[in-house]
């Protein structure tokens, strides 16, 4: 019998019951909750007279709607305010711990989970948010769910799920200077497409992945969903354990030893088989820039906007033409000649301390280009903000003409006041370049933090390797 994949091991450890058709009752260890996808779930519990099965497994934080400026004044938008207040009330009513808006531990749900040690190796982690795949960086099985499933997990601590197929994406070699986990993620999506991972749980493996920090692995797993995979994951190694140890909610003492012993087994066996395998060479990956309205519409920074005439089929040709029109770009334009109006450094993809350091290293001693209306840095959590300030990163950004904001999802999806105006073009470290994602009519180019910082300085995209 073939060995087990990491996914097999995580799945098997959480099977409560399995029906003949493969529908499995899967136990959920950690449930992360935010204000946007939970109100209807709590309302459902109330209407049915149900209580959370294990309230302590859940932790809540408002992140999508929170303002990134003048937080002491509260939330100006009454609709956003009601949603955050509803979360506060639901958490109080149902006994769920919440990091409220003015708690220093508040931040983007996918940033604070790992930061607090709420996300641990071997766990099943769910959240009503597709970027829950982020937590797979810890050797956890983590995936996004809809609101009905949020209610289901609250009520039963379980989900009814069917096992996905397993895909391994191997990246061997050493990433070049200026090439980051974000570029790996975009290169993978460029290779397999936004539906390439549909129906799969993806394990990222290989020496280049092992070489990434946990922050980098989180960036990569975060964007597994942009390749269509609900879950992305990386095997546990010493780096994982080093990251987790000492976090507020991580086990300690004898329980730490017991946990670590199990966690060290959370890797794919050498003779395990995958349903699909993809491999990339780290040396072939260069900084990436998306040009269209889907993350798979991506090219290298040293190339040009593609010509729809070269699209692989008629449906794609039409999509490319539509994307170019929306983006206000002409086929054949060199990527480095595209000027940007705004720069956004933040989001659950790229708002961790390593991301801020990489951006600050590019910015230090330089000034934002005059043509760039706004360059904003939104740390992933209050604790990251504090750490960055202790390191002086905030001064580097402010001295360069950037804005230094309070933590939250911000302009990744523009549910708060941070948004693009119609026609504005943005270099963004977030994860989705969909039409209207950062504001109706806004034009998003996805890049790494260093690339975004360089674009802010130059006023257009540049190759950060030679900047």
């Amino acid at each position, binding site marked *: 019998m073939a060995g087990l994949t990491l996914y097999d091991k995580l799945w098997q450890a959480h099977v409560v019951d399995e029906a003949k058709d493969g529908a499995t009752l899967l*136990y959920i260890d950690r449930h992360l909750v935010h204000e946007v996808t939970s109100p209807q779930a709590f309302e459902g519990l109330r209407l049915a007279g149900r209580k959370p099965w294990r309230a302590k497994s859940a932790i809540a934080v408002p992140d999508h709607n929170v303002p990134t400026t003048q937080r002491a004044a509260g939330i100006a938008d009454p609709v956003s305010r009601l949603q955050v207040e509803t979360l506060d009330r639901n958490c109080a009513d149902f006994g769920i711990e919440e990091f409220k808006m003015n708690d220093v531990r508040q931040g983007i749900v996918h940033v604070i989970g790992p930061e607090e040690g709420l996300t641990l190796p071997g766990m099943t982690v769910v959240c009503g948010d597709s970027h829950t795949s982020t937590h797979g960086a810890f050797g956890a099985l983590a995936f996004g769910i*809809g609101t009905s499933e949020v209610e289901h997990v609250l009520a039963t*601590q379980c989900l009814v799920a069917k096992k996905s197929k397993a895909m391994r994406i191997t990246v061997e070699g050493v990433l070049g200077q200026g090439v980051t986990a974000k570029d790996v993620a975009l290169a993978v999506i460029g290779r397999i497409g936004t539906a390439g991972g549909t129906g799969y749980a993806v394990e990222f493996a290989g020496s280049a992945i092992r070489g990434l920090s946990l922050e980098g692995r989180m960036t990569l797993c975060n964007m597994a969903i942009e390749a269509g995979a609900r879950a992305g994951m990386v095997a546990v190694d010493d780096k994982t354990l080093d990251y987790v140890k000492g976090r507020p909610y991580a086990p300690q003492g004898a329980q730490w030893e017991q946990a670590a012993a199990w966690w060290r087994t959370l890797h794919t066996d050498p003779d395990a088989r995958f349903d699909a395998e993809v491999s990339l060479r780290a040396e072939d990956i260069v900084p990436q820039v998306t040009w269209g309205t*889907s993350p798979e519409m991506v090219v290298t920074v040293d190339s040009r906007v593609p010509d729809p005439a070269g699209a692989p089929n008629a449906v794609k040709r039409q999509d490319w033409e539509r994307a170019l029109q929306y983006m206000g770009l002409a086929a054949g334009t060199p990527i480095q000649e595209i000027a940007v109006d705004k720069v956004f450094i933040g989001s659950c993809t790229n708002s961790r301390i390593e991301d801020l350091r990489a951006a600050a290293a590019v910015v230090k001693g330089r000034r934002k280009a005059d043509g760039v209306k706004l360059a904003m840095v939104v740390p992933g959590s209050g604790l990251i903000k504090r750490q960055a300030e202790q390191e002086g990163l905030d001064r580097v950004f402010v001295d360069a003409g950037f804005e230094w904001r309070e933590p939250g999802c911000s302009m990744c999806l523009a549910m708060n006041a941070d948004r693009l105006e119609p026609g504005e073009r943005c270099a963004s470290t977030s994860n989705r370049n*969909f039409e209207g994602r950062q504001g109706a009519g806004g034009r998003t180019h996805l890049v790494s933090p260093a690339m975004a910082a360089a674009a802010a300085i130059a006023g257009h995209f540049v190759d950060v390797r030679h900047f």
Partner: protein
Amino acid sequence: MTPFTRLLGLVAPMDRANVDTDAIIPKQFLKSIKRSGFGPNLFDEWRYLDVGEPGQDCSARPLNPDFVLNQPRYRGVQILLARDNFGCGSSREHAPWALQDYGFRAVIAPSFADIFYNNCFKNGLLPIVLSAETVDRLFAETFATPGYRLDIDLVQQTVTLPDGSTIGFAVDEFRKYCLLNGLDDIGLTLQKVDKIRAYEARRRAEAPWLFV
């Protein structure tokens, strides 16, 4: 949940791949704490010429005459015909809520994004995967035939075309059962309380750090 058994419904074509949930229901409408009322904002940015905000009276907004669902021939539509990777992106269940609130009961596509596909079943909206060739044919027939209708039978797992030809589709047993009967699957899971408790007891012994 509304049960789904059989539907003879008007079809509208959404002829683009990778239709994401941000397009289906833009983020500003996710601020609602309710589960209903999203229909007027379905495909908001494509459907209207102005920028939509929550709480507006949409009946007074300027419609985009080029948007497919604004064409009079698709009034009363119940079946959406779509391309690959429909519903990709965010996990927002507001997407199936909006489709259903608009009047859709089924979506047919060559492929769906996983989370969206799953969310549909929780809301009495049936996602049907058919081959790319079949979907191409349905697009051609829908464009060519005003009033084009399909007959969807969940019990038989078939889609019947106006010419009487029938195409089968796959659906998981459990999902089919819940959809046919309009069942709340929380209630079904809670029938397995003993199994959940037994799992927890075993797991608590193996991995006590998960239960602090």
